[in-house]
């Protein structure tokens, strides 16, 4: 089992709940959302009470976003400086100083993995991707000079569009696979900020291919950040772990979350994560499903389902957003259970699950259950096509 909690603002007891439930086996801390002394104290508490992997995303990439919503980064983290432009990355010495500061911060705290600083790359040949490669290269060099450091993960934050071209990806993979490093931490910047499990089929296929080549073929450890349900196919393709968090902005990565904007908006509505549907749906939708007599087929079959089954109906249950978060982990962990076999077997199993979910959606719709646009199961078509394309290009 390898799901990590993607830490963010307002952790309260969400992390420890997921660890207690054994739904997650580690945490990826976000520098932006914690003061250093609090972070240090929290690490100590976790180390004392849990066996889990503790990783730290330095979020170095936020420094190039303007105006950045960077909270504690400028005052608390010495490797960080707001408003960096491409000019700030000219010269090996500058790059090396960013790298040393970012890595030293982590070695001092004994994280189980060290993550290299990176910048957001929109493709594999633009200026920023070259900077990202330099940061990675310099990190590998610096890390290899350290004697007792824990293993290094080269961090990559790629915009979704970078995955469009297969030939560019191939050339990029030739470079990544030539590096002598323990592994990669990959985050995909999503085009659309709306929370949904949709993912353009070709991009999904290429992302799966990337993970497969790195993790399975070339035996790197691959951790996928901000992955949520997409983490399931990624795990099937060989990723060692994926991470997701309690807010939608921690479940999929979008630049909006790191840019300053006006406060406001409404609190999110209650959701239910269903393993048979491979989706997180609205509690109201679960109510309609229950009314139509299909509740049992949609439940994830995890501990916290009892809150719903003990009540007369989903909406009259004691379901809260805290429970929903915790239940979300349980659901993902359940899906993740079947994914430690060979890649081909995992993918075949997942394709069967996707087909089953598609059938279940059809049944529910035929029974008159109304779904919203982002919960109506359209993502399953992307997934199926993406998985099939992946099988073909990976010649599985």
């Amino acid at each position, binding site marked *: 089992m390898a799901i990590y909690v993607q830490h963010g603002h307002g952790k309260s007891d969400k992390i420890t709940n997921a660890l207690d439930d054994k739904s997650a086996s580690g945490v990826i801390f976000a520098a932006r959302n914690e003061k250093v002394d609090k972070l240090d104290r929290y690490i100590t508490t976790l180390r004392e009470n849990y066996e889990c992997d503790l990783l730290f995303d330095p979020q170095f990439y936020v420094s190039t976003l303007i105006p950045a919503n960077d909270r504690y980064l400028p005052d608390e983290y010495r490797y960080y400086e707001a408003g960096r432009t491409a000019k700030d990355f000219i010269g090996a010495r500058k790059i090396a100083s960013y790298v040393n500061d970012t890595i030293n911060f982590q070695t001092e705290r004994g994280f189980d993995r060290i993550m290299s600083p990176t910048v957001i790359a929109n493709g*594999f040949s633009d200026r920023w991707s070259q900077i990202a490669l330099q940061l990675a290269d310099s990190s590998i060099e610096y890390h290899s000079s350290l004697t007792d450091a824990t293993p290094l993960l080269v961090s990559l934050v790629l915009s979704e569009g970078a995955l469009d071209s297969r030939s560019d990806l*191939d*050339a990029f993979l*030739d470079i990544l*696979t030539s590096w*002598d490093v323990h592994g990669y931490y990959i985050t995909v910047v999503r085009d659309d900020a709306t929370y949904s499990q949709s993912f353009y089929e070709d991009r999904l296929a290429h992302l799966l291919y990337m993970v497969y080549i790195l993790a399975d*073929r*070339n035996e790197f450890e691959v951790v996928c950040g901000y992955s949520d349900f997409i983490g399931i196919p990624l795990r099937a393709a060989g990723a060692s772990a994926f991470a997701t968090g309690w807010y939608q902005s921690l479940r999929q990565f979008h630049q909006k979350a790191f840019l300053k904007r006006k406060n406001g908006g409404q609190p999110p509505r209650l959701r239910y994560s269903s393993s048979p549907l491979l989706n997180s749906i609205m509690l109201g939708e679960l109510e309609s499903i229950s009314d139509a007599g299909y509740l049992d087929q949609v439940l994830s079959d995890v501990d916290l389902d009892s809150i719903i089954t003990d009540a007369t109906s989903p909406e009259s249950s004691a379901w809260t957003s805290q429970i929903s978060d915790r239940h979300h982990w349980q659901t993902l962990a359940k899906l993740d259970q079947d994914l430690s076999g060979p890649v081909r077997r995992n993918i075949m199993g997942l394709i069967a699950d996707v087909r089953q979910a598609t059938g279940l959606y059809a049944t529910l719709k035929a029974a008159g259950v109304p779904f919203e646009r982002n919960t109506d199961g359209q993502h399953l078509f992307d997934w199926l096509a993406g998985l099939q394309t992946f099988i073909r290009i990976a010649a599985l």
Partner: protein
Amino acid sequence: MIARHELYCITYPAIIQGHPFCIDFLDKEAMANLPNLTVEQIEHVLGNVSGVRYIARGGQKVVWSGVIDGTTYAIKFASTPEEFTREEDDDTEVEADPEVIVRASREVETMRDCASPYMVKLGPIGLNFVEIEGQSLLYFTEEFINGSDLRSLLESDGPLAPDAIIDMGIQMTDAIKALWELGKIHRDIKPGNIMRRTSGDFVLLDAGLAFDVIGESLSGGFLVGTRIYFSPEQFDYSNRRTGLDFRSDIFALGVTMYEMATGRHPFWNRGHSSQAFYSNVTSLAPEPPSSIVEGFPQDLDNIIIRMLGKSPHLRYRKCDHLTRALEAIRGH
């Protein structure tokens, strides 16, 4: 059976990612002007050598054997262009050595530095230049390998047994690894450049094209070597490729293992057009050896096919990974 003349050349018909290029129609090696020598001439010039015998000729060098201080060595001669000697005579700096000399110097240097027991060793005479009856020549010595090169072996005895293929794979991977530790790739791995000793061990020869990945100008690493053992990336001039690495040698070793296992080249047949060859190398999934050789082990099949991956990232990222995979199936 494969054509003896394996120095096959192609004109590449199209454009790769906006970079048009053309492969020399004729391979330079095929055109090399080989020295013409007699036993007497060699014994006379080298002085302390006796029992000189003709062994073989490759694309670039003529190979003899001879006894120096009681031990038999291989003595290799190649022709050098005449301008070279002239320039040296009048004491001017040679700006760029002719390619044949660059190659020979590399070969000697590589043999001297390479730590692998499966790379042929330099003999007592390093690189020397001599003029014999109007021919400008270079020569050097190597340990003499008792055995036969795989090209000849394939022609005389047919394919090798799977166990021998595995041993060859492990030993050649050791040589590739040692070269890569020096920052070099061999670039000319093929049956004619591997010998099997009578003891059964394999030896890699002919490091004349061994190439320093860093700080090398000659041909930039592309399009030098024997065309039909090229990996797809060796045809790709795209500037997005940062360069070649040992994984191109792994590909050529895969082609060699395939050929030694089946008697067939995975991507080329005599009579194929250059276009057909190029398209096969870059896009044809080769028939697994087990579909050609009855009872050929599936797990060795998988390793060879993986070595023939179209991109370096599909092969093995460390020599040790390949060695481990081969060792795991040895003796099954």
